[in-house]
């Protein structure tokens, strides 16, 4: 074979190879986007994670940290623990949060409740929730942190379960409600601050309503799904396989 012939054939093979590679990539993208996010096969999972890591670094790390551990001084949650504010923490749940955000400016964003500011005349802008006194707040903190004397903790329990209305959102057992994004107050994981008495006072007296932006539009379906898979993998290092329900 003449060198020229060989060169031509080589070029053709290269083109065909590149085409096949591109086709394969696109096919993986297509299947990744079309699959049920909660039961992603291993090859799609492996395809998604590096892509998601890239998107995360570009768009999410500024708030959630490069390692995904959040920033409790600004009320940004860690995505590395399995404690979820919203939903069951499946890839599908996470994807919906990323797409529409939390208390973000769009009709589909998750915005069911805010933490009232109990040391103000009108703790909630939307609900008729009465304010508390400094003593009430101190009692309720004693109840939550199991500090103070039995008397104050008992008073705190009454405020929690009755006049303060805390039970309505956080549940009678204070374990929160992932259906509406209300945090568990019985675990050691805190969204805002370090779980100290002062930090709890800061939230209960002055309220809290964290915002996660909506990414649908900024990110396409492929990047959204890949990021959701990556975020899920942060708290589930052993995955795939995913059927987590």
């Amino acid at each position, binding site marked *: 074979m003449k060198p020229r012939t060989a060169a031509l054939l080589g070029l053709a093979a290269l083109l065909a190879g590149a085409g096949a590679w591109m086709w394969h990539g696109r096919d993986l993208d297509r299947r990744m986007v079309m699959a049920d996010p909660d039961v992603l096969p291993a090859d799609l999972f492996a395809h998604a994670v590096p892509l998601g890591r890239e998107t995360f670094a570009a768009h999410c790390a500024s708030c959630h940290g490069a390692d995904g551990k959040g920033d409790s001084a600004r009320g940004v949650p860690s995505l590395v623990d399995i404690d979820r504010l919203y939903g069951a923490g499946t890839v599908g749940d996470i994807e919906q949060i990323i*797409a529409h955000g939390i208390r973000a*400016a769009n009709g589909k964003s998750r915005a069911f409740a805010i933490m009232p500011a109990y040391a103000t005349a009108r703790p909630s802008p939307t609900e008729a929730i009465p*304010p508390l006194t400094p003593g009430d707040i101190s009692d309720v903190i004693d109840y939550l942190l199991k500090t103070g004397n039995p008397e104050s903790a008992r008073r705190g329990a009454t405020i929690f379960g009755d006049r303060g209305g805390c039970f309505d959102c956080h549940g009678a057992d204070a374990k929160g409600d992932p259906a509406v994004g209300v945090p568990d107050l019985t675990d050691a994981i805190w969204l805002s601050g370090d779980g100290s008495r002062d930090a709890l006072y800061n939230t209960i007296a002055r309220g809290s309503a964290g915002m996660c932006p909506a990414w649908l539009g900024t990110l396409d379906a492929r990047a959204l799904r890949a990021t959701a898979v990556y975020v899920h993998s942060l708290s589930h290092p052993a995955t795939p396989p995913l059927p987590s329900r």
Partner: protein
Amino acid sequence: MSDFLAFRSANTARSFTLLGLGAVLGLGIAGYALFTAPGTSTLIVAPEDVASVNQRPVSRIDFDAQLRTLYDVSPTEATPEQRKHVLEAMIREEIFVQRGIELDAAGADPAARAALVSAVEQQIVAESQTKQPTPADLEAFYRQNQAKYMSEGTMIVRDLVAATPDQAAGALQALRAKAPLDTTMAKFGLKDTGRTKDEEYYFAARIHLGDADFAVAQKLAAGDISEPLVRPDGVHLLVMSRNAPPVALAFAVAQERVVTDWRQANGARLLKGDETFLRKRANVLIAEDLR
């Protein structure tokens, strides 16, 4: 064959073959791009969509969300009936929205108009939300709005009332001479109005005492007793036992709210800017009598 590959000399068959190959390749690339580029009108439903209605996509992510909201299932957990029901509902919605635009529903229907206004406002604000403020942004905002980032201010004050100015004056003199409160109250016939008790936030004390009496109370230090206050129901003495006025909160304590407020202010600024731009762009004519 050897002629075909003898590139130094012209060969008609080779020219046509290469031309043909080029044409086929070009058509292939064009066709591929046409059928797969996002937003193109094709007969194919893109992988990120579950349907297409007059070339407008019905998105898969919304379909997933609907299944989760209505039935609490993921797409594979859903039964075929559930999937069909959600899909049909979404297609119906898209068709009706498109028809609504054709009929200019927003021209007349107040609910549609309000929804559109709100959607546009949200879209303007949403663009700014992906941006995280820098620490410098936040600290500047915190300093400019220091008055917003104060502790609450609390007081423990008792509001006593006497029937006559003489009784109030007598009680005031006794209390300032450090006579015990209970015996003084009994001696001069003072009653506790119960308007305030225990430690209260300033806002609550203001509500309970009323603006005028709160203004007096605010100036009292612990251990102080107010001058007699003549009111319709008698002569009042305010006895202050603790008064902690608001103090500035450290930046670290206020930070989370500074972020929220900064973002809100930033959104409002953007909204205003876009409004000005849209207004400038619009051709607005105003009736003579209203100019």
